[in-house]
């Protein structure tokens, strides 16, 4: 129908299930993610959105279902059943993960430069000077003063730590970045700057994102498409503005009406 659009999704999640004992965290979840697309997953705490993100990232084993990823090599890999070696390799090359708390996503005891260079070194980059140049470029790209390259992340503000985490992930030019409440716990003004940066980088690098957030404002600004989760199920999914401006499901209407203005 539209010939210039990709014909195969980058990621297809098929009938994913995950329970903790008798508690169903993700029930029968299916969706596609297309190259360059930003998918927001919204819902309140306990809705299963973070579990879903962690399952997709391979941080949690799933009970059933497929996570089909079209790798850069163009082969389809089912991450739900891939070997540790293959999954971990993809996670630190073609995928990124931005944690809500920078301390979980950064090496706090190592300098900003080392944090940015880690993925490259893991890929066998062993030229100190080049690693350093790359780190400087990325610091500039995420609006951190280059002279902070040898400083420890703990001397950074919360917003800077998040930006460093983003640089650390994007340095290998991943095709998919997962973000778990990337602006959670930041001041509003800091949030705005971070959101703007994420928006710009995602566009520039044409990276597909799955962003988990409970903040509909963040979802509105970042996501092309939303999935609303409740009790481990997707209750409604669609184009971001459709979902927020014309919510159909009772729960989505409740979510939207609970926000002051989005």
């Amino acid at each position, binding site marked *: *129908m*539209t010939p*210039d*659009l990709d014909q195969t999704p980058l990621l297809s999640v098929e009938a994913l299930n995950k329970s903790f004992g008798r508690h169903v965290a993700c029930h029968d979840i299916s969706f596609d993610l*297309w190259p360059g*697309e930003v998918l927001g997953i919204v819902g309140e705490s306990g809705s299963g959105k973070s579990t879903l993100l962690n399952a997709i990232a391979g941080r949690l084993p799933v009970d059933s279902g497929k996570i089909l990823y079209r790798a850069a090599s163009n082969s389809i890999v089912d991450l739900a059943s891939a070997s540790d070696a293959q999954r971990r390799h993809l996670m630190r090359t073609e995928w990124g993960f931005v944690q809500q708390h920078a301390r979980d996503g950064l090496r706090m005891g190592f300098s900003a430069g080392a944090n940015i260079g880690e993925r490259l070194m893991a890929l066998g980059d062993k030229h100190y000077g080049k690693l350093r140049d790359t780190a400087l470029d990325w610091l500039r790209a995420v609006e951190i003063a280059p002279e902070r390259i040898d400083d420890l992340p703990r001397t950074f503000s919360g917003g800077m730590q998040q930006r460093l985490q983003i640089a650390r992930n994007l340095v290998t030019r991943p095709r998919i970045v997962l973000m778990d409440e990337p602006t959670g716990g930041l001041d509003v003004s800091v949030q*705005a*700057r971070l*959101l*703007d940066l994420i*928006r710009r980088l995602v566009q520039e690098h044409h990276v597909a994102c799955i962003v988990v957030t409970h903040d509909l404002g963040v979802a509105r*600004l970042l996501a*092309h*498409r939303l999935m609303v989760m409740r009790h481990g199920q997707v209750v409604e999914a*669609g*184009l971001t*503005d*459709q979902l927020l*401006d*014309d919510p*159909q*499901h*009772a729960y989505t*209407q*409740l979510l939207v*009406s609970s926000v002051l203005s989005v």
Partner: protein
Amino acid sequence: MTEMIKVENLDKTFTLHLRGGIALPVLRNTGFGVNAGECVTLHGPSGAGKSTLLRSIYGNYRPQAGRILIRHENTPVDIVAAEPRVVLEIRRRTLGYVTQFLRVIPRVPTLDIVAEPLLARGAGEQAGRAKAAELLARLQIAEKMWSLPPATFSGGEQQRINIARGFCADYPILLLDEPTASLDETNRKIVINLIDDARQRGTAIVAIVHDADTRAAITTRLLPLESQGVAA
């Protein structure tokens, strides 16, 4: 005549789950078409569904029944049934939407906000900026403001920036929701000229305009809407 928009048997009802599931029918069996070079103005009392219809055409509201065929890259595509990424692609290439309210993106300078739709269609940075500058100048936004984010600008300035943004990409179809509300006489005339220029170029336009003079100035065909339906 190229038919750019074809609305068929459109039903749209809002169900308010938070208010006991009350159903508000707004559009019933609505149908009409818009050709290239036409400016169709929706007309009717408040609550007749003018904005709902406009938003449905943009793919912002989801009707329960019916089709809205948008001529996108020479092929009619039903925006009601299209998957999200197709809707976004249609908006990127074919469909522009101008309201009186600018959705401000934090920290992005005015010039970039205006140029963005054109850049998204693949225009070069320079060409995009030049076109944006031309429109901002035409809409009498002082040059010193171009490099500032518009968050702190006045309502009228923000509205004109939003109009510039809407006209920047030369979309084949333009949806206008009160584009001249709260503009002064001079700027209102500038916007009317912009609309007229676009129509002369062959743009298909659907508009909602309350001000009778403006309506008279831009409209080629009036589409009366009544509460809960349409006489087509």
